[in-house]
């Protein structure tokens, strides 16, 4: 079942001439793990902001085309209403934790939804257990490591019981080990509670093994889409490297990812 579907989605930020995303068509099925990637400034974050209606309710600009998320059109829903359905984890964990203890922070979302105290308590316990931060109830955000902070951020989104979780580069402030642990935790979540995941990520080497599908964006458009193995060999072919094409069927995923990263670097240098 498709729970997200975009038709010809285009958005131009106020005061900018070029659209940040242009003619984007894509869909996400329930329970999928989708990784969205591409060079910096390609429109990934803009697309993510559309998914929980930060665009157009928070950011001014011109929106055309349509995007429906769980049967709601984003152009007439507000982010705070949509937050019951779509959780959003941001890049910088420090700017999404509001309280001085992890427990109260995880409770913040359910409190805002006006849930009774008992239910809030249950959800906080549940979310902290799932993300493995049960021992950090009383800790203050600034006492935590980056990985723990990001877990706390994920737990606080999870406590609102969203159906879709959008994560905008959740590992970019983390060291490689914490990054791989966070991605593993996200993948486990999907297995345990069947939540749909849209993950924006540069660390393809770590993220690809969990993904059902990879979307690659460039200059505001989705240029490639498909399961990881296909996307990577396709990309290599597109770049016109017959030598690499030969290896693409035989080599391991790890190698393919390396090749893809090389292709990225080439493109960025150009």
């Amino acid at each position, binding site marked *: 079942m498709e729970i997200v579907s975009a038709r010809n989605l285009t958005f131009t930020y106020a005061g900018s001439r070029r659209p940040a995303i242009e003619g984007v068509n894509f869909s996400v099925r329930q329970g999928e793990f989708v990784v969205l990637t591409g060079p910096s400034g390609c429109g990934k974050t803009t697309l993510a902001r559309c998914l*929980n209606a*930060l665009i157009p*309710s*928070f950011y001014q600009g011109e929106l055309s085309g349509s995007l429906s998320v769980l049967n709601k059109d984003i152009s007439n829903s*507000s*982010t*705070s*209403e949509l*937050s*019951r359905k779509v*959780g*959003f984890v*941001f890049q*910088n964990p*420090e*700017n*999404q934790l*509001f*309280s*001085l*203890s992890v*427990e*109260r922070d995880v*409770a*913040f*979302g*359910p*409190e*805002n*939804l*006006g*849930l*009774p*105290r008992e239910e*809030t*308590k249950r959800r*906080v316990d549940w979310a902290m257990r799932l993300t493995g931060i049960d021992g950090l109830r*009383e800790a*203050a955000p*600034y006492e935590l490591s980056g990985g723990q902070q990001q877990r706390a951020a994920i737990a*606080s*989104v999870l406590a*609102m019981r969203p159906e879709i979780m959008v994560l905008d580069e959740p590992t970019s402030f983390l060291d490689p080990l914490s990054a791989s642990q966070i991605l593993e935790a996200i993948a486990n979540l999907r297995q345990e509670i069947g939540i749909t995941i849209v993950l924006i990520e540069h660390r393809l080497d770590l993220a690809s093994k969990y993904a059902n599908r990879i979307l690659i964006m460039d200059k505001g458009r989705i240029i490639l889409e498909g399961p990881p193995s296909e996307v990577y060999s396709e990309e290599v072919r597109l770049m016109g490297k017959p030598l690499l094409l030969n290896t693409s069927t035989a080599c391991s995923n790890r190698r393919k990812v390396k090749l893809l990263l090389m292709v990225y670097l080439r493109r960025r240098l150009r």
Partner: protein
Amino acid sequence: MLSIRMFEGFKFKQRKTPIHRLDPRPKFMIALTIFALSLIFANVMVFLLLFLAQLPLVCISRSVRRWLGSIKGGAILAAMIFVMNFLTGSTLVFSATMTLRFLVLVSAFSLFFMTTSPDDLGLALEKARVPYTLSFTFTMAVRLVPTIALEAQTIIDAQRSRGLEMERGNLIQRIRNYIPILIPLIVSAIRRSTELAEALESRAFGVTKDRESLVELRMKLSDYATVIIALAVLAIGIYVQLLITLPSLDTGIKMPALWKF
């Protein structure tokens, strides 16, 4: 950054002590009582007593070092108060009284803020019918102080490593040295506020008016006892001030008049 270090003594730190466990309302009551007493009295003995009476509380809350820090931070201002009073013709004892009054207040409020979680303070404000958006703004501001202080330090280090000399030149030059610190700090604070607003929106901020918070403030027996003790001390203070004349210790020592206004 002297100013940032001075606030250290007003920063909350989680500890498990009887003082930390007290409800914020009776704790505020203690601070208010001390505040009221230092307004109605002008006797050096009383201030000495008020000052000494806080020492056991500071010890129980296991925050002696940070308390000393805030006293030290206040010491410069205290010294100024003393000198100004003395130079403008007050007696030695009166100047000392004014200085002590200041230190008593600094100590009382530092003790309050050191031992009261801003989250609890927010809850107390909510209980006092302050609108949630307002009490949240307050909690958020307190929560961001350490973050912004850390950021300021990073910017200072960055600008220094590019050759900015903070401690150079006369007073005006030194103030101007802060411009390359302040501008990035303000820009990043604005950027941070946008991100915070985004995150707040995504966490259903303001969806419903009747939110029920996870932790509920409840007055325990010890809290009621604290309120009663504070009120009793205040009552005794008022009684003493109105009906008993305390011996004045003023020796009448003054600066010889150097100038006339």
